[in-house]
């Protein structure tokens, strides 16, 4: 029984993924395992902390999770700067290099196809938040003789206005998504983030990722910058390594 396991970050073309002087999870040096023209980028991790049971427990520890996520991301982002890369889902761990080599060999054609699909392309994220409509000034309509009734009426119209505003924002976000999708080679929608996680009070109505080439990236940027949608506040993140698109199945 060994006391280390092998943590896999990403797969790249063997010709591209030269040795990087970067460290990965828990500061361990990153190295390559090569087979079939592919390079698996890995580092050794402590078997006790990355064994299946320990890993499940550790993922509940937010600080630990964040450290691993940032290390994983740094390695993948650095690889993505030198060529196409297929990032592997976080916390994918193998027993040893021999198993990683076998994986490259067994899945070689699917991995090569995935790398070809994302070659010269990057991923951009677009999020849209619903902008609350300005408050209507309907105090003039208040009926002085029936203050209770007019209060209830105001409350109801306030509620209807909020629901209508959100509906309009969802529709506007769908329209934005359709326009950007036309510029993209592939798209993927994620669940809108919980306001407690996004740290915003406005409701998120679009959380999407787009795979684009360089011209597409410029177009998406322009579109997000220039598009004047009063119902929405748009936010762009990227370029990301193609986390959402380098899958082993055709999208």
């Amino acid at each position, binding site marked *: 029984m060994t006391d280390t396991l092998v943590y896999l970050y990403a797969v790249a073309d063997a010709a591209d993924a030269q040795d990087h002087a970067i460290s990965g999870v828990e500061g361990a040096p990153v190295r390559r395992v090569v087979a079939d023209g592919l390079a698996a980028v890995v580092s050794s991790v402590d078997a006790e902390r990355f064994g299946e049971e320990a*890993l499940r427990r550790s993922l509940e520890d937010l600080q630990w999770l964040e450290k691993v996520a940032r290390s994983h991301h740094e390695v993948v982002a650095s690889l993505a700067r030198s060529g196409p890369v297929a990032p592997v889902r976080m916390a994918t761990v193998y027993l040893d290099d021999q198993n990683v080599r076998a994986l490259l060999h067994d899945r070689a054609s699917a991995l090569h196809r995935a790398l070809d699909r994302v070659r010269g392309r990057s991923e951009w994220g677009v999020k849209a938040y619903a902008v609350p409509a300005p408050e209507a000034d309907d105090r003039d309509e208040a009926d002085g003789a029936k203050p209770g009734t007019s209060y209830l009426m105001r409350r109801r119209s306030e509620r209807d206005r909020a629901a209508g505003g959100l509906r309009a924002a969802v529709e506007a976000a769908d329209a934005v998504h359709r326009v950007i999708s036309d510029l993209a080679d592939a798209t993927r929608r994620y669940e809108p983030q919980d306001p407690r996680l996004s740290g915003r009070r406005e409701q998120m109505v679009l959380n999407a990722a787009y795979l684009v080439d360089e011209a597409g990236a410029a177009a998406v940027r322009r579109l*997000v910058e220039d598009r004047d949608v009063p119902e929405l506040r748009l936010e762009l993140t990227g370029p990301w390594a193609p986390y959402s*698109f380098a899958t082993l199945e055709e999208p």
Partner: protein
Amino acid sequence: MTVVADRDVALVDLLDRLLAGGVVISGDITISLAEVDLVHVSLRALISSVQTLVEP
């Protein structure tokens, strides 16, 4: 419009991609955590931590 620099990537955006995206390989793998489980676990951790921060 905001373009977020690499350094400042929000953890929640990172988890969207690192946990829900990325190549999933099964077979010889020694540890494979189901997609839904993993996202669920991490989001639960995140939410409870945010709550701890908000309600000391």
